[in-house]
Structure formats: C-alpha cells, structure tokens
C-alpha cells in the first residue's frame, strides 16, 4: 500500500475517569493514578464491578456547558460537548468557522442511558417522547455538535470499540481527498446499564481492578469518556496560523473476519490493521517508539493482540502499554481517548505505564511498567479493536517531525 499524506492535528480535547481536560489527564498519567473505582453515578444492581466513571453528574455537566435544566440531554452527548469544547478552543475555531468544518463522531450506546431509564414511559405514555428522539446514535452527534453551531457535515460511526478510531480515519480520508479542510473526529460513550449487563452476560468483566497483559487478568473494567481531534490540512492550518499539536501520519482498518465477539488466536485483523497503518505512514516497525495497545484485560484480546504485535515487530518490539487500567475501557470513545493520551505522551516525552500489571502471561508481551519522563518519542502506534473483529490502528507523530 502506498504512503498517504500526513494530516495535522491542530487541537484536541478529552474527558475521562482520569480527568476533565488534557491537563488533569496528563497529571494522572504522570502520577500513574487510576480512575477506576466503585460505581457512583450509574444506577445498577451490579455494584460489584469497578468502573472508570467520569467524576461529574449529568447536571454538573449540563451546568458546565451552560445548558438550561430540563433540556433533554444524554450523558454521552454531554461528555462529548465538554471534550469538543476543549478541542475547538485549542484549535482556535469558533462558531463562524464551523460551517466549513465536518464532525465525525463515534458512538454505539447513543442515548441508551435515557432509554433504559424511560423505556416504560416510551411504551405506555407520551411523557418522555423527547428522549425517544435522542435514543439513536445520530441524534447524539447532532446534539453534541449543535451546542457549538452549524457544522457542514455530521455523521456517526458505530463499529463498537473501534468507533472513534474509525471516525478519525474517515476524517483524515476526507481531508486527503480534498473533501474538507478541517474535520473534528473522535467519539463519546457513557456507561449504561445496557452494555454493563451485556459485557457481564459475556462474562468479560473483571470483579477487581483490570490487569491488561497480566497472567491473572480476568476481564475488563468499563470506563466512559469522550475525546476529539481537530484534523486539518497543512494548507488550511497555514492560512489560519494554526499550530499542529501532533500529526496523524498513518492509519489502517482491517477486519479480523473471525467471530462477532472473539478475536482470532493469531490476531490476523490486528496484524493487518497495524501493518496498513505503518505502510500508510511510510514507517518501518523499528520507527515506532511506543505502542498504546488496545489491551482490554480480557483473556482473549490480550493473547490475540500480543501475537499480532510479536508477528509485526519481532525482536524490535517497542515499549507497550494499555492505559485501560487507568481509564477503564471507554468502548466507542477509546480510539480518541487513547489518541489524546498518545498526543500527551509525544508532547511531554513519556511512556505511560500499564497500571496494575504484575505477572507475565505465557507467550505474551511484557508491558512498560516504568514511567520514563524525558524520553524522546517520535512515532506512536495506537490500537483500537472492536466487536466483529473491527480492527483499527493510528500512527501519531511528533509535530515537529519531518515525515
């Protein structure tokens, strides 16, 4: 596959269990502080599962976004607004710029948090019809974007846990094809009873702190959050005088074509996604300085992803970590949440730690356990794999790096 052109990232924003905004997230990463703990905001019988919740109630988020009480909102859209606000501000984009900016959002639960709360009303009366309108994923993207003005194009990708990564790929493709100068892309997902129970029914939730790549790992911890990248062509950024915070130098999407909820033992889809991303960036495996793994902590993913990384990198495996033991698995948002973590790592020169790892797994990778500040990172590979074997990888590159 031929090399593609790098796309500039001129702003980004994030909200997650380890902080609201890039500064809080950076502080948590540098002090190796997990955001996973007992349930506080979600109302469920399953209080036995630790989760990575955003530490704000819906009404606190509404207040932060200046939304009048009583306005129909969903938690996914509220988190999306907070992250989008930070991303637009850093890129220096305001309401008057948005009619030439596209918004590509990744989410799978959409407005399910309200649907599961008001489901009986939906069926029996007309008191909650406004929340039927916010049930679908597309309306969630419209609500998030609409808070800031009129974007020229809005679409929603729903490929489960790789949704945000695929949104970033579409955004970059739109810029490469000359279809847009600026695309804001990423994802948002709140924890719902619906998918907490879904993951529980699949028996892939750890009852304790999750431990990606550990021999004793027993599943994932659900997280929630939102993050967006402002993707921009070099010409547009030059015209606006916008500065790149990092580059998206390559990306790849592949299908494992193996099973709806399990990864193939040899990680074929993951291998192909990573290979495509490297080829697209015009890089060799040895050029990658750090891999932010998908690393969910499920027995299956971590075996499959380890095999794929070993196949591609062989003896030259760079430091690897999963940051999901800090943030929880932010599902549809994980691609962009972790892309922002990678950008923070590039900007501040450190390799995030694979929190809570202790025991090497058989034939698995040994993750990075030492915070290495002052390490110069040039290129980071960031993996997101979803149900259905929907595998995507992004290459993020230091902004002042000639590519």
């Amino acid at each position, binding site marked *: *596959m*031929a090399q593609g*052109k790098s796309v500039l990232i001129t702003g980004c924003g994030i909200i997650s269990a380890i902080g609201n905004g890039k500064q809080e997230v950076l502080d948590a990463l540098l002090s190796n502080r997990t955001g996973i703990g007992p349930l506080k905001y979600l109302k*469920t*019988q*399953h209080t036995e599962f630790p989760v990575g919740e955003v530490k704000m109630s819906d009404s606190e988020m509404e207040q932060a976004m200046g939304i009048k009480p009583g306005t129909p909102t969903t938690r996914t859209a509220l988190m999306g607004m907070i992250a989008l606000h930070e991303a637009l501000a850093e890129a220096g984009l305001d309401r008057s710029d948005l009619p030439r900016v596209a918004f590509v959002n990744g989410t*799978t639960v*959409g407005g399910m948090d309200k*649907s*599961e709360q008001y*489901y009986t009303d*939906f069926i029996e009366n*007309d008191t909650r*019809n406004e929340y*039927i*309108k916010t*049930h*679908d*994923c*597309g309306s969630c*993207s419209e609500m998030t974007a609409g808070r800031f003005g*009129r*974007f*020229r*194009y809005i*679409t*929603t990708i*729903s*490929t*489960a846990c790789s949704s945000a990564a*695929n949104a970033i790929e*579409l955004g970059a*493709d*739109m810029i*490469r*094809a*000359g*279809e847009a100068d600026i695309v804001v892309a990423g994802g948002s997902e709140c924890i719902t*009873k*619906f*998918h907490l*129970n*879904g993951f*529980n*029914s*699949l*028996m892939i939730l750890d009852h304790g702190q999750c431990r990606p790549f550990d021999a004793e790992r027993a599943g994932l911890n659900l997280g929630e959050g939102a993050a967006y990248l402002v993707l921009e062509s070099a010409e547009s950024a030059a015209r606006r005088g916008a500065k790149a915070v990092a580059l998206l130098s390559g990306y790849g*999407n*592949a*299908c*494992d*074509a193996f099973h*709806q*909820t399990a990864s193939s033992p040899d990680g*074929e889809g993951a291998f192909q996604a990573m290979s495509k991303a490297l080829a697209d960036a015009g890089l060799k495996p040895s050029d990658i300085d750090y891999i932010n793994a998908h690393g969910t902590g499920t027995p299956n993913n971590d075996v499959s992803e380890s095999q794929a990384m070993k196949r591609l990198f062989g003896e030259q495996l760079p430091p690897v970590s999963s940051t999901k033991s800090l943030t929880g698995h932010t599902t549809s948002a994980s691609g962009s949440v972790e892309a922002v973590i990678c950008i923070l790592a590039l900007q501040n020169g450190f390799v995030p730690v694979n929190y809570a790892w202790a025991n090497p797994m058989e034939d698995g990778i040994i993750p990075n356990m030492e915070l290495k500040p002052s390490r110069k990172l040039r290129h980071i590979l960031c993996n997101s794999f*979803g*149900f*259905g*074997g*929907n595998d995507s990888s992004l290459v993020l590159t230091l902004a002042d790096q000639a590519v």
Partner: protein
Amino acid sequence: MTQDKSIKVLSAKQISIQKPLSEEWMDSPETYQESYVKAVDPDFKQFISAGDARRLGKLLKRALATSLSVLQEGGITNPDAIVTGTGFGSVENTELFLDAMVREGEQMLKPTQFMQSTHNTASSLIGINTHSHGYNSTYTQKGLSFDSALYDAWLQFRLGKINSALVGGHDEMTPVFAGFMRKAGHVKDGEICSEAAVSVLLSSQPDAPALCTLEGLKLLNEPEPAELADAIRSITGGNVPSAIMTGMSGNSENDSWYGFLRDLLPGVPLLRYKHLFGVNFSSSAIGFYAVACCIKKGIIPACLALDGAPVKTDQGILIVNAVEGRHYSISLLKPICGGL
C-alpha cells in the same frame, strides 16, 4: 491525490415490503393500507445454513441474503470494502435485551441478544461469511445512514484504496420501535412505517458489466439554499438530469423539503418511492436501488413518477434525500454509455 476513475454500480438488491430480491414492483407493485408493514422475506435457505437461520436476527439474515446476491451477480467474492448504514441497528435484539432488563431485572440476560444488538454486526457478519479482511465500517445517522456509508466507500475509491465495495442500508422494525418511530416524528402521518435491506455492489473495474455509474455524491448538514444549489450544480456539471428521485411520501411537511427543486431545475420530472416502499432509516438505500435498476432498464416506470408518466433515464437521475429538512444527500447516477 484523488482518482477520477468511474465508479460503477454492478448490482443492487432489496428485501422490503415489495417482492424480495426482485424488480417485479416496477410493473406490479404491492400496495398497502396499513400504517406498519413488515418486509416480505425470501426463502433464506439458499443463502444461510439452517443453524444461522435460527441464530441470526432478521436484519442480519436480510443483510447477508442481499449481500451474497449482489456479490454473486457482480462476480466478486471478497469485496475490498464492506460499509453498512443502519439507523437503529438490530432493534429486535436490542428490544429483547432492554425489555428483559427493565422488566425482569439485571440477572439472566442473554449474551446473544447483546451481541446482535450492536450496530456493526451486519458488516462483521458479511466479513466473516466472505472471509474479507479489508476495510470494514458502519454508519448510523438516521435517514442518512446509507448515504454516509456510500460516501465513505466513494472516498475510498477516490483515494485509490479500493477497487470494489459492498455498501448496505439495513433497518428492521418491531411493533414497539415502529411506535417509537412515530412518537419521535421519524415516520409521519400518511407514511407507512416499514423495513428495508438493500445491498449495492460498486466497482472501479472498467470492463465490468453494470447497472449504471455513480457520478458524484455530496452530503450537507443544514445547508443554506445557495449551498444546496451549488452542490447540485457541481454534481450535475450544470447539465439537466432526466429526472430527480426525491423522498416525497405524501406527507406535506416532508414533501415541502423538496419544493426548492421545482425552482432550481424547473420542468425536470420529480420521482418518488416511499409510497411503495414505506419509510424507515434505510429508505434512502431503496431510492438509490430503485434508480440504479430503472437506469439499467432505460425507463422510469409510471408508478415512481409524481405525475404518473414514465420518464427516460438517458441524462441520468439526480437523487435528493432530505432528512428533517436539515440534512441532505445529493447523488447522481448515469447510464453506462454516459449521457447520450
């Protein structure tokens, strides 16, 4: 950077409230008086094993049947890209899981229902079934879901990343979700709430036999009238198409969103399909399918024409999809020999 190779529609198939996997509706369409009508399913045996037929929800069965049909007709086994649009995803399994959780509590919930409730199961199932490791994605944007998927595939062609793409628009309904569609205003007075499964096979191979070519595609959010006019002008190159396929349904609010076309392209016949196929989030995929099949035949049957007169297709058909009067997709399909 981009390639301008012609993109061909090799095959297009539907399962809907008309006769499935057939174009019989062109001559003798079914008509309905009900406000909610389920799709007419084909015999799935020729596409799906008995085990899969029991295990899979109806959206997945229909997606697989239409996909395998177009792949077979187009002579492609592994498409380079599989891109699906679905507004609600597998609502049957979503409802079963949600209903059990709300009414019976958070114990004993079924993993298969959860697995099948995820929107991207159709794209994944097709990938698994055809052993396709290529580009795989899924869009969900209400009535623009199929259009969003088509736009992604179109970008992949233009960037030279793919030579073939399987694009789908799949939405199923349940009585409960049909009620939600009305309460939310997605289906309006006088419209039939329906189901649709459409698969379209696209290719950039120059010698492949095809129904028509996809000449251009634009999607716009809340455009100014001038932006809409510019988008149409840039897609048509200023030429007058033979007709315009609209999403007019007979509901006056919905139909008012297409009024601007009479001023912009006066005298060009307007077409419709929702009176025959009903309304759901994948309706626009039906509009695209219907136009592709009509162009191949060389004639738009009277049943689609707003004024009831058959229309030629030689100058190509413009397709306009207006969702809520705010979100638009505009595309142009042309006969293989070009606009004569």
